[in-house]
């Protein structure tokens, strides 16, 4: 029997706003002494009330827009009621039926998907993007459980996809893409190890009927996996789950609906909590926060302050700048590098330096963009150009000598064995180790005519 994985993702991203979601406490808790960034609001003291952080909501809407979501004109916060020691109010302020953003999508490149012809893109649907608050952090020490409220109330954006993934590789590609987007937007560091990007995949398998019968219904069970704090773990955990569930299904049984955790030491997932029925969170509208309305112009003005996103940049670099997909991908990985490249090309334009050449410098020479200003890079390129053109005469002489000394290669080349030129380039390079290979090749080709 053949099984097809059905994977959906919930990703939590902590925003790096100055203050927390509902109070003015500092939101950056990393490395802080426990329980030093707290106040009556994030401690849930009697009488304290939440006041929403506008910047955080803006960040959430930006993420929604970047994921092609619809931004709802009317939205509200809700209370999600449940008991846990890391939740001081006994409820989490979240969003239930009217989140800020719904119905988006992202495209994954064809490379990771064997089933699609290369170049085809796979669409992952985004169900919703909503705003909530982080819980406190529980630290278990021997017999004691300690609570650090520095994290309590930190803005958290939850991004939920439809179950559209079919492999661990697709999930990882999506995660990288999402990380890149929130970093571009500068709303979160999205560092998985620091815990400001967390993910919970839910995984199940359905029978792959190979087109005989298209089953639209989802499997009757799903397994949620927690405790994943790197892309590598995500891949391993999902692959492990697919293997484990395949074995169970092959025996004619159904996997248990449960929450499992990734155990890195044992390299497997282990049972954490078996959900017999869905927990009832008794959601109801948060009475302490009036509903939030976005006019179309509010949304437009948020859109205006958003930077150009990686996909659009990538397209511009390949279609307009005529860079290779490979170069464009490297240059757009990090917004800072992409912007550095853009700036340098503007200056380079006045000096008639091609974009491709600038790209080569940034990619191959590993330019430290924090130390070398774009104008300085242009100066370096100009100097190198002058150096190499000065040497042209000398180069021609050396080439003439080499052609005489290597008659066999010359004959081979003239007989159509084009690759023989590589041998000759190598010989020339012994004399000019720093010279541009392309330039050598050009002069060689001329001489061989």
């Amino acid at each position: 029997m053949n099984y097809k994985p059905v994977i959906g993702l919930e990703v939590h991203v902590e925003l790096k706003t100055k203050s927390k979601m509902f109070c003015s406490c500092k939101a950056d808790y990393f490395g802080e002494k426990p329980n030093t960034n707290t106040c009556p609001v994030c401690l849930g003291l009697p009488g304290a009330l939440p006041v929403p952080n506008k910047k955080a909501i803006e960040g959430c809407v930006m993420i929604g827009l970047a994921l092609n979501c619809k931004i709802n004109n009317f939205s509200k916060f809700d209370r999600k009621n449940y008991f846990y020691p890391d939740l001081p109010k006994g409820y989490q302020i979240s969003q239930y039926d009217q989140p800020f953003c719904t119905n988006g999508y992202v495209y994954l490149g064809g490379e990771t998907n064997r089933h699609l012809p290369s170049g085809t893109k796979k669409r992952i649907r985004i169900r919703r993007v909503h705003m909530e608050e982080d819980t406190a952090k529980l630290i278990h020490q021997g017999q004691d459980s300690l609570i650090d409220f520095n994290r309590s109330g930190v803005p958290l954006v939850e991004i939920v996809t439809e179950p559209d993934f079919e492999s661990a590789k697709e999930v990882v590609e999506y995660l990288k893409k999402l990380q890149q987007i929130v970093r571009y937007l500068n709303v979160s560091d999205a560092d998985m190890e620091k815990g400001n990007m967390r993910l919970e995949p839910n995984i199940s398998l359905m029978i792959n009927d190979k087109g005989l019968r298209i089953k639209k219904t989802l499997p009757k069970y799903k397994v949620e996996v927690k405790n994943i704090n790197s892309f590598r773990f995500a891949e391993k955990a999902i692959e492990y789950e697919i293997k484990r569930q395949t074995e169970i299904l092959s025996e004619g049984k159904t996997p248990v609906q449960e929450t499992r955790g990734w155990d890195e030491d044992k390299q497997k997932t282990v049972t954490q909590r078996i959900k017999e029925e869905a927990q009832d969170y008794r959601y109801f509208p948060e009475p302490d926060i009036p509903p939030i309305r976005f006019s179309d112009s509010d949304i437009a003005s948020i859109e205006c302050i958003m930077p150009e996103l990686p996909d659009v940049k990538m397209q511009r670099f390949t279609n307009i700048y005529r860079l290779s997909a490979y170069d464009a991908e490297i240059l757009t990985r990090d917004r800072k590098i992409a912007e550095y490249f853009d700036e340098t090309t503007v200056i380079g334009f006045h000096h008639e330096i091609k974009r491709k050449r600038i790209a080569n410098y940034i990619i191959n020479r590993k330019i430290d963009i924090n130390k070398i200003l774009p104008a300085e890079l242009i100066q370096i390129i100009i100097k190198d150009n002058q150096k190499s053109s000065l040497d042209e005469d000398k180069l021609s002489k050396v080439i003439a000598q080499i052609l005489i000394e290597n008659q066999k290669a010359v004959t081979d080349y003239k007989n159509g064995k084009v690759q023989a030129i590589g041998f000759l380039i190598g010989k020339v390079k012994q004399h000019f180790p720093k010279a541009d290979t392309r330039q050598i090749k050009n002069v060689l080709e001329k001489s061989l005519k």
Partner: protein
Amino acid sequence: MKLNELTIKRAREGLRNKNFSSVELTRACLEQIKKHNKNLNAFITVTEKKALEDAKNADQHINNLAIGQFNNYPLLGIPIAHKDLFSTKGIKTTAASKVLEDYIPAYDATVVKKLKDAGAVIVGKTNLDAWAHGSSGENSDFGPAKNPWNTEYVPGGSSSGSAVSVASDMCLAATGTDTGGSIRLPASFNNIVGLKPTYGRVSRYGIIAMASSLDSIGHFTKTVEDSALFFDITSGQDIFDATTLPNPTESFTKNLEKGIKGMRIGFPKILKENSQELEYLGYFEIAKRLIQKLGAELIPIDIKHEECAIACYYIIQPSEVSSNLARYDGIRFGNNRENFGDEAKRRIMLGTYTLSAGYYDAYYKKAMQVRTLIKKDFDEAFKNVDALISPVSPTPPWKLGEKISDPLKMYLSDVFTVTANLAGIPGLALPIGFTKNRLPVGMQILGPHFSEAKLFQIGHAYEQATEWYSQKPNL
């Protein structure tokens, strides 16, 4: 007249003219508390030492203030009390529940801070139905407060102690909260003035929440004018409460003397079904006639969905209660949950049920829809009238213990008051006389959102004509 019997207005005049000091005034209140609190149980905590210190500072302040600066401190040296639901930094705040028996807040509620900044002296924290759950004051875990007009009777709740403290001259004013009538009912049972402001006009920050979408923060005073003075201080937008709204700039006392000539005042078309005692209704009829005599036009009004109000209220309120009480888990502060009393447990269970999956639509959601209809009814009514008058309670004060074993009967005593909370509109309760047994009777004046100034105007006119405030209980 004894100092503690003064109104805020009179006391301020006396302090300004240096007829007496704040220490003398505060001491008079503290002595009254000492004499009668044992019997009336109005206070859970009396802050004698701190009050005298603050009064001393106030006196120094009065002496040092340049003429004209006095008005910057509208309550300078005036002794007041807070319902023990208001967080007071460094002063125990119990909500009259054993759960918070030893809880000392680390911060002041916004209203507490505003009153402090206005110069008020806090004499203590007053008794209430635990968590503000109740209409009689009997649900306090520290024993019920008693009605100063007859200690065999309830003083009304939930702000029982605050009402008793003002009625028995233990302080000049006291704060309260009104979620379904908890200010207006005890005000009317004690022959004093109680204001339930428009929802969102006074900050709820720092006040232990009962039902967040219904909680209004108000106060008790001896006169309508004092109520307006007090409201000038407590009202206004607060950056710590996202549901508050900005205030107009003029004082609420501005229109006090304008009278009610030519006003159109509505009254409920049908009352008898809701009222349990015919004799008692007679007092409201007398009040109506007086309103007419003062020059207003009386217009019968029908709030169509009023009959659904109690049902609607007793779904929304416990739902929010069940969520608001979740934080009292005993992990970080307070005692554990076993200390919740019966009424709190009842509301937690009711609310948990009405919010549960599968029941939410039938209960909570439906109740919210009815609430919208009630709001609309009032909006309609106020197109036709300036304000509405109605009794506060369907009965005069009842005897202690009379309704305690019948929660439903107790809930029904809120029948005239909950509508204002559901609609979010303001209500001013004021005395309209006494029963044959010399128990106080009150009425409420309801107005559109943000119409407090008008309510004070009507209330003041009525008060000037009746002067019920001059009647004092025989302690």
